[in-house]
Each structure stands twice: as C-alpha cells, then as structure tokens.
C-alpha cells in the first residue's frame, strides 16, 4: 500500500456557499481532510456536496459560489492564495480531473490522437512525429487494442469506456500528482468499469500519486479505495479505512450500508434510512 | 379564495406549496407568474399598455368625447386644442375620438388573427411532428410554400384577391402568420414526442387527439403564446400597412393605418393627422414586443 504519511493535499475547514434569492445556501460546510499517496473515496448521496468539494479544490466552482477555507495546501502551493494564472498551470498538469462523461472533457472537433499529441508536445517539447509515436504507445498502455484506428477517431465516435481510457492516457503524459475522479465509471457497464478501474489503479500505484475518487457506489469505493470519507448534507460525517467500513460508527454510514441489497448478505426487507436532524449539528 | 381578510394572508396562502386543492395549485402558478411579471419592469410596462388598450377599446363610447364619424367641414384640419385634444381631420372629425375607436379595430384584428392562427398553427405543426412520416412531409412542404413569400406581399396578394374590407384583411394576415407558428409547434412537439411521459400515456391507451390536446398542448402553449405576442406587433403593422394602402378597413371606419394614410396629404399643414396614429401604432407594437419578451422569461419551461 502507498505511503499515506506523505501528504499531497491538505484541506482545512473548507466551506462552499451559494448566494440565492432566499439567502445563502451552504453546499459544503467545514470539510477537512488530507490526501496522501493513496486512493481516497468520497461517498455521499445526491446533494451531499461531494462533487462541489472536488470542484472547489480545482477552483472550478460556479462563479457565484464563495469558497472559504482555513487552509488548502497542495504540495508547495497555497491553493487559496494562488492566482488564476497559477491555477491554470496546475489544472491538468499537477491536478487532473476525470468526469463522468469524457465527451465533455474532450474537444469535439479534434481527433482523439491530436489531443493526446498536443499534451505530449506541451509537456515533453516533442516533435509532431515523436508525439504521434508517444501517443500510440500511451493508447496501448491503457489497453486500447487498435491505437492506429483510435488515433483518428473523434470524441463522439468513441465509447464511454474508451473515452475514460483516453482521459487516463493523457494523465500518463502530464504526470499529475493528484487525480480527482468524479463518478468516472458511473456511466460504464460492469465489465468496462473493471477495466477502467484497473488501469486507474495501476496508474496511481505505479506513479505513487494521490487519487480522490468521488462516487455514490459504496461497494465500489469500499473495494477500490484505501480510505473513505462519508459526506452528508455538506459535512464530513466520518472518515474511515475502506477495510473497516463494516465497523463504521456513524448512524448515517450504517444506514447506507444496511440499505444496500447484497448478494452475500440477503435480507428480506432493506433497512430504511432514518435521517436524524442531529447529524446536521456540528 | 379570500379565506382571510388581509392581503398578507392571501399572499401566504398563494405562495404556500402545501396545496389543499387543485384550484390553489393553479392560482399559485398564476400568482408566481404575476410576481415575476412585476419583477420585470419592461414587461410590466408592456402589459400595462396592452391592458390600457383593452380598457380603452372596451370603454370607447365613454372615453371618446365626440362622435368619430360626424363630419363638420367648418372645423376641418384644426390643430390640437382643448376642444379637440389631437385636432381634427380633413372632414372635421375629432382625431382623439377616432384614435379611441381605432383601438377597437386594432384589437379586433389582432384578436381575430390570433384566434384563427393559434389552433391552425398548432394542429398542423403538432400533427406533423407527432405523426411524422408522409403526413409530416406533406404538411411541412405546404408550410414552406407559405413561408417562401414575404409576408406583406402575400397579405397584399390575398387581400387584393379577396377585395378590400377588414374581414378580408384579417384572413389575409392570418394566412401569412400561421406558418411560423406551425413550424414552432412542430419543433416543440418533436422534443417531447419520445419523452417517457408521452410513451406512458400511449401505453395506457391514449389516442392521438388526447395526447396532442392533453399532453402536447400544455408544453407547447408557453412558447406559442410568446411567439404570438411577439407577432402581435407585426400583425398590427401589417394591418396598418394594408389600411394605409386602402386594402384594409374602409372609410369611414376608424383604423390607425388608414388614418395615417389619409393624413399624409396634409402632412405639412396638419402634422397631427399622421403623427398621432403613428405614435399609437408604435406604442402598441412596442408594448406587445416587451410583453412577449417578458412572457418568454416567465413561461418558458426551460427556465422553470
């Protein structure tokens, strides 16, 4: 397992607020966590603020949102103090993001190969010929069988799983030290999901980097990540090692686990989560 | 409705989402639309002018201080004065009174055109979009034929063929207005054609008529109403244009376009004859445009 003591990202008391007509809505409230060279999962239901948290780290929140934090330190950079220009040089190079639908992250009017080559040229100052061969090698690295053909495809011509692999191949070149993956496999079929996750797993372990894996799928996070942060209504209710998830203490985490139908522990009736207003205090 | 005596209670009752009857749910929606209309000053100004037009048209005999048809050559072409606020025309008729009665004509034309055009446009467009296939091809090619002529030329041709007169002008204008409505209805229908809730209705045995009227109409209505409101100004202008060319309302009927046309000969001596109906046409078409823009923001389902 990766060395977790080597911290890549520290977030202390981060809040994200949205001004609305009826006052300020707090989407994320006083969230603190650290990410080392490990796979950390953020679990939550819709509206829990898990995606907002991931975006706020990259400063990709909507323009009207207000992000506050006591500290947001990424390696040697203070993310709260960084200028917009510095953020641009961090995004994609040092912190990369994978979204649920790769089509929105790729340029629709450029072929897949051209886009990866561009990354190669940008990062390795390679000639176009070198870039092409590097790109083909990268596509092969992410288990794309026919890289020559895929090179000339446009983003709308590739499947979801292929698109995520293309996103990962770009990261192989840019070599970020932190990847934020927001539901990267939710739109994928089971078999493709396994392939994409194993490639992502290899990337994180081999390069010894950090991964924030945002998902609603408890079983997936439990089996894929090292540590799990459970979010409820914008708050972190519990942080726990993935292996110990069954021993989770917080009633919300327990409720989620019990609400899940399981092949291994069949139940006649699923437990219904009773939301306690007390969870919202603290 | 007014279960409580005070306005604030009524307001609370209207904005509450804890509905206790379908009438409350409906009133709630109307009230919210009203509140957002108030929040949009330009749209509200447009609404106020349109409302004023309706009131003026309804109360024309009360408001008009003179008979709009009584001729008196002794007072022909008099400048605006306390007795004749907007002066008199070449036959000595009071321009203010004719303007008030002209509002009736304008409203008559716009309402009649709208009432003719909205159902025709919707039925042709929605049927075309919902059924598809050859029905779609035939109906849309007919629409294209109408669309391929400039609307004023088409209106001119029809009213020339049908003969002068206000009813014929209405028919001629309606013939030029329905094709864009049909296009719009078809486009809207296509977006909802394969929605799950339409399929659910089909699987429960709903026929074509029921799906179009009960399911497609409520969804198309907002954009069609917006489009028609925005069209009002061009209807008014076309009507005025036909009147100006002598193809619309016939003398002695008061109609703004015809009033402006007849005043043209005396433009240098009696500026009020063209200016006053001109300003009226301008104000009302601007008001309809502003109202239409505001309604688009309020009613468009994509904003809600």
């Amino acid at each position, binding site marked *: 397992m990766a060395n977790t003591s080597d911290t890549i990202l520290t977030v202390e008391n981060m809040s994200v607020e949205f001004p609305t007509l009826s006052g300020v809505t707090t989407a994320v409230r006083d969230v603190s966590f650290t990410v080392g060279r490990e796979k950390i999962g953020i679990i939550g239901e*819709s509206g829990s603020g898990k995606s907002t948290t991931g975006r706020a780290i990259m400063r990709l929140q909507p323009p009207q949102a207000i992000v506050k934090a006591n500290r947001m330190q990424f390696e040697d950079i203070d993310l709260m103090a960084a200028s917009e220009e510095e953020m641009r040089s961090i995004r994609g190079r040092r912190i990369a993001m994978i979204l649920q639908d790769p089509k929105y992250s790729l340029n629709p009017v450029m072929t897949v190969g051209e886009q990866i080559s561009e990354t190669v040229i940008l990062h390795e100052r390679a000639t176009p010929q070198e870039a092409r061969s590097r790109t083909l090698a990268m596509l092969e690295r992410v288990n794309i069988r026919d890289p020559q053909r895929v090179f000339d495809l446009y983003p709308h011509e590739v499947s979801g799983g292929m698109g995520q692999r293309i996103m990962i191949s770009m990261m192989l070149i840019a070599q970020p030290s932190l990847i934020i993956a927001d539901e990267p496999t939710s739109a994928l*079929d089971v*078999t493709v999901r*396994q392939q994409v996750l*194993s490639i992502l*797993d290899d990337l994180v372990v081999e390069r010894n980097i950090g991964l924030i894996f945002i998902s609603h799928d408890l079983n997936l996070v439990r089996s894929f990540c090292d540590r799990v942060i459970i979010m409820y209504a914008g708050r972190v209710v519990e942080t726990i090692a993935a292996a110990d998830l069954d021993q989770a203490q917080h009633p919300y985490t327990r409720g989620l686990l019990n609400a899940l139908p399981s*092949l291994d522990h069949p139940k006649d009736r699923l437990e219904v989560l009773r939301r306690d207003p007390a969870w919202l205090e603290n | 409705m007014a279960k409580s005596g005070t306005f604030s209670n009524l307001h609370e009752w209207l904005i509450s989402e804890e509905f206790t009857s379908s009438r409350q749910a409906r009133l709630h929606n109307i009230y919210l639309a009203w509140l957002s209309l108030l929040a949009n000053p330009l749209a509200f100004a447009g609404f106020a002018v349109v409302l004023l037009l309706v009131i003026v048209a309804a109360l024309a005999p009360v408001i008009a201080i003179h008979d709009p048809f009584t001729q008196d050559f002794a007072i022909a072409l008099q400048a605006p004065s306390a007795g004749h606020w907007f002066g008199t025309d070449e036959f000595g008729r009071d321009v203010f009174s004719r303007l008030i009665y002209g509002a009736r004509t304008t409203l008559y034309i716009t309402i009649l055109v709208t009432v003719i055009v909205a159902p025709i446009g919707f039925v042709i467009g929605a049927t075309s979009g919902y059924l598809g296939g050859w029905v779609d091809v035939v109906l849309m090619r007919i629409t294209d034929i109408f669309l391929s002529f400039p609307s004023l030329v088409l209106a001119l041709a029809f009213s020339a063929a049908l003969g002068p007169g206000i009813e014929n002008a209405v028919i001629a204008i309606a013939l030029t207005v329905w094709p864009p409505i049909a296009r719009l209805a078809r486009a809207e229908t296509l977006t909802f054609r394969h929605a799950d809730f339409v399929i659910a209705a089909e699987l429960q*045995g709903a026929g074509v008529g029921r799906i179009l009227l009960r399911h497609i109409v409520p969804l198309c209505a907002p954009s069609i109403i917006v489009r028609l409101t925005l069209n009002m100004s061009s209807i008014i202008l076309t009507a005025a244009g036909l009147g100006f060319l002598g193809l619309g309302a016939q003398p002695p009927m008061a109609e703004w376009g015809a009033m402006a046309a007849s005043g043209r000969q005396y433009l240098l001596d009696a500026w009020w004859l063209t200016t006053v109906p001109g300003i009226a046409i301008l104000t009302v078409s601007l008001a309809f445009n502003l109202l239409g823009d505001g309604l688009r923001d309020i009613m468009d389902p994509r904003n809600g």
Partner: protein
Amino acid sequence: MSMIKAHHLAVSYGHGETALKVVKDVSFEVEKGETFGLVGESGCGKSTILGALAGRNKQWTGTIEIDGETIGQKRTRAQLAKQQLVFQDPFGSIHPRHTIGRTLLEPLEIHGKDRRQERIEKVLTDVGLPLNFRYRYPHQLSGGQRQRVAIARALILEPKILLLDEPTSALDVSIQAEILNLLKDLRQREQLTYILVSHDLAVVAHLCDRVAIMQSGGFVEVATRQQLLENTVEHPYTRILMDGSRGYVSEKRNSRREALPA
C-alpha cells in the same frame, strides 16, 4: 398458470437494409406472482424485451401470451391495461405541467373508470404518499416521491403485471431501499407479477425469483435466486456481473480479461 409466455421472441429496430435485430429468439415463461429478472449490460436487449411486452416496440416476431391471451401487434385498451411500464428516469416520466392528481386521473379517463377520486386516493395511499400530493406538480417532488407517483400511475388501472425498467438506478441508495421495499409489499398485497430489468445483480437477487442473464440479444443463462445467493451459477459471464455488483475486483483481473467481450 403462466401469466406471461414468450416464444421465439425477436425484436428489431429500423427497416430493410438498416434493420437491427436487438433481441434474437428468446423464450421464457413467468408464473403468476413470480418476479422475473432481466440482467445485462447496455445494448444487450433487456429493455427492448420489456418494451415489446409493454406494447412500446411493435416490430417483433414470435408469440407473446399475456394472462392466457395471445397478443398481436395492435392491442385493445383492455390488453394495454393488463401490464404497465415503470420507467427508469423519474424526472422524465411524469408530465411536468400536470398536477399529480391530473397524471393519475388521465388513465382513468382513457379507460372510462368510475369512482375516480376514490381510486386516486387509494393508489396514493398504496404507494405511501400523502393525499394532498395530488395537488402538487412534479417539480415540487423528490426523485423517490416521483418514482412513487410513477408506480401509482402504473397501478391505477389495476394491472396484473408491472414491467420495471431499472426503477431504482437513478435514485440514491437509501431511496432505492424504500422503493424496493414498496415493490415487495405491493407484489404481495396486489398479487402482481413483475418483470424487472436491471444492471445490478444485487437488486435483482433481492426482488426476483428467477433471472435471465442477457448478452448481445440472447439469454446466456436463466438462474434462480438460490443459485445467485449460493454462488452456483454456471456461466462465467454471470460471475463477471456478480463481481461487478460487489465492486472492484483487482486480484482476478488478469485471468478475467480474456473472458471479456470485445
């Protein structure tokens, strides 16, 4: 007695040269009160079978028998009311400009039923929604509440069969549990027969008695609930899907890669 019989059912989309056969010759029977699952990955044809049974996809060959009656391509109203479809996306399956009451009234009007308000109240109670919800619009409801409305709309014609197309995959885990419990209760109370389409074997095993595992338009295996829970399924593809519902399996991935489809 079988509630649903499908023999040599094949379903296709498109015409002539470009026709695409999505379901290739499947046969199955579902008993009264049984719940039959259809599981597979996207494009395997599971929703298409459901569409053919519901009357949505009309380009099918073979025979379909529902409640002892052979069904043709065109159905009568009574035949349509025998089975009702519940859609995956609760945000797209309810008319956005109708109140819930209007949505529930609609099928009653189509079928000319009597005691309409009484029926609406009963069905709202059945799916666990307060009666005053009938005056609300869908945008005032949460995803779980909307799915309850969708189930209520399906139930109001008193069908014998509910066809469930991924009814919980757009919902949060805790809401999924509520809907799955509701479906179990309704099945028992109303003596319903279900066909459940899902990509998650854990959900299927929770609700279904038997499940057909589908791949590229055909059944690879029909397994019982017992087989799933005891892990005695036969086909390797079924095992892959079972692993998928457990999460990420890293150790076995090299040996599995060969078994994956292209």
